[in-house]
């Protein structure tokens, strides 16, 4: 089977899983306080930032540090648990499809889900910016190209995170541990973002990218340049390693 047809099969499996609703709700919730407290964007507390940039960054803040990694954890639970009921995964593994391919398509679906969430986030941003603009009589819109670039970079930064969570979900068969480790690992990213070893901690990548964007909009808040050198090789290495281990170990418990 080709990669594409396998992916469509995987998408069919999660069709009735309500996952889209779970992706949509946080996107809506995150903009509610931004709209209600829209006038707070003018009170920048001495930070040199324009209100429209402030609106954009503050709105994304909670989403990026907690909700993006958390949705990835929920996605891994979804992808591993749907097939464990009634031993669906056993039937999949007995098909003449390589397990590594199966593992990678599932990972692709995970990435696809977070991509869908990204599109929803950007759409919600524009709707809320329109509401806030008409409420406060101030233009909160930013250029679509800029918004898409930032959102895309943040979600691209979440790929290594997704790879690590996927590896955890495959290696640890007990769902409470897999989900627990995933969720618990999100919390310290707030602390690690300000240390020198942030680049070795994949859960902090999306947050780091948003903070860099914050640094670009407002001088002196955070660094305005991405430290490509230790980061990019480490991120690639982590992603490849995590996916490699996941592919090797995929289905090993069932095959015993």
């Amino acid at each position, binding site marked *: 089977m080709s990669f594409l047809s396998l992916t469509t099969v995987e998408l069919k499996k999660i069709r009735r*899983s*309500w996952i889209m609703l779970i992706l949509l709700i946080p996107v809506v919730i995150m903009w509610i306080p931004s709209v209600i407290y829209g006038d707070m964007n003018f009170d920048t507390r001495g930070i040199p930032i324009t209100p429209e940039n402030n609106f954009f960054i503050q709105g994304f803040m909670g989403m990026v540090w907690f909700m993006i990694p958390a*949705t990835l954890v*929920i996605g891994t*639970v979804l992808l591993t*648990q749907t097939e*464990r009921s009634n031993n669906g995964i056993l039937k999949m593994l007995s098909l003449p499809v390589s397990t590594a391919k199966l593992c990678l398509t599932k990972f692709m679906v995970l990435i696809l889900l977070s991509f869908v969430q990204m599109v929803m986030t950007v759409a919600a941003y524009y709707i809320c910016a329109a509401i806030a603009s008409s409420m406060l009589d101030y233009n909160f819109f930013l250029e679509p190209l800029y918004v898409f670039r930032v959102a895309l970079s943040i979600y691209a930064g979440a790929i290594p995170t997704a790879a690590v969570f996927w590896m955890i979900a495959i290696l640890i068969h*007990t*769902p409470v541990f897999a989900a*627990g480790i995933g969720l618990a690992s999100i919390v310290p990213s707030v602390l690690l973002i300000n240390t020198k070893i942030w680049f070795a901690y994949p859960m902090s990548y999306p947050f780091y990218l948003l903070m860099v964007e914050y640094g670009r909009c407002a001088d002196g808040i955070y660094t305005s340049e991405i430290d490509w050198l230790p980061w990019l090789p480490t991120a690639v290495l982590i992603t490849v390693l995590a996916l490699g281990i996941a592919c090797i170990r995929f289905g090993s418990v069932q095959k015993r």
Partner: protein
Amino acid sequence: MTLSLEIKKLKRTGYFPAFIGAGFIASAFPVINMLARAQTFTALSGDPLTILMDANWQMMAMINILICVCGSCIMYHTEYADNGLQKMDVLPVRSGALFITKFVITALILAIIIVMETAVLAGCALHWFPGRGLSLWELLKTAGFQWLITLPTVMMMLVIASAWKNMWISLGIGVILVFALSILPQDLLILNLCPFSSPYQTYAMAVQNDRVSLFLILCPVETPGLGLLEMFYQKIRRCVQ
């Protein structure tokens, strides 16, 4: 009888090790924080326990909430996975009692990890703030208060977990609630009293704002209130199914 039965069910799910592990992770926060930036905190004046709680409790409480979310999901996941709950329904066991025992187990294990965390905080206070005074009574009050205000969250999460057969939906709703109440402004009293938001309060903060009695009255009311909701829900579901 149901209590020992429930504990047996959880034996191979990794439930108890997961809670203890979460307790260790949460306890690591103050220690690492003090190891890394002891100067910043020892320079502050005031009660050492309050300083440590202010610096670390937000994250520790978040870990506690997250493990309660995961734990509740797994409790009901084991029931739903192979239609276990249907089998329980035909046994001479009240389904309400099943829910209550699940709550009791979570509340007890939560008490253990909160005591653990408070002990570590006390250890940090003794080690990094020598001679600043630390009363056992104060510690016990803090631990008890933190435990009590986390209980509505535990109850609500169990209600959510019992409502959905699929684990990712209950996990998703739990995580969304954690997220929603962490981004809403923290200075509104009504929001502070909600489940998923109340555990972030610290005892010292509540004393300062004169809200201890408010929390001590409302949280023990919220908890059985949510429990009643579950009983109603079970009745309705029995008719619909």
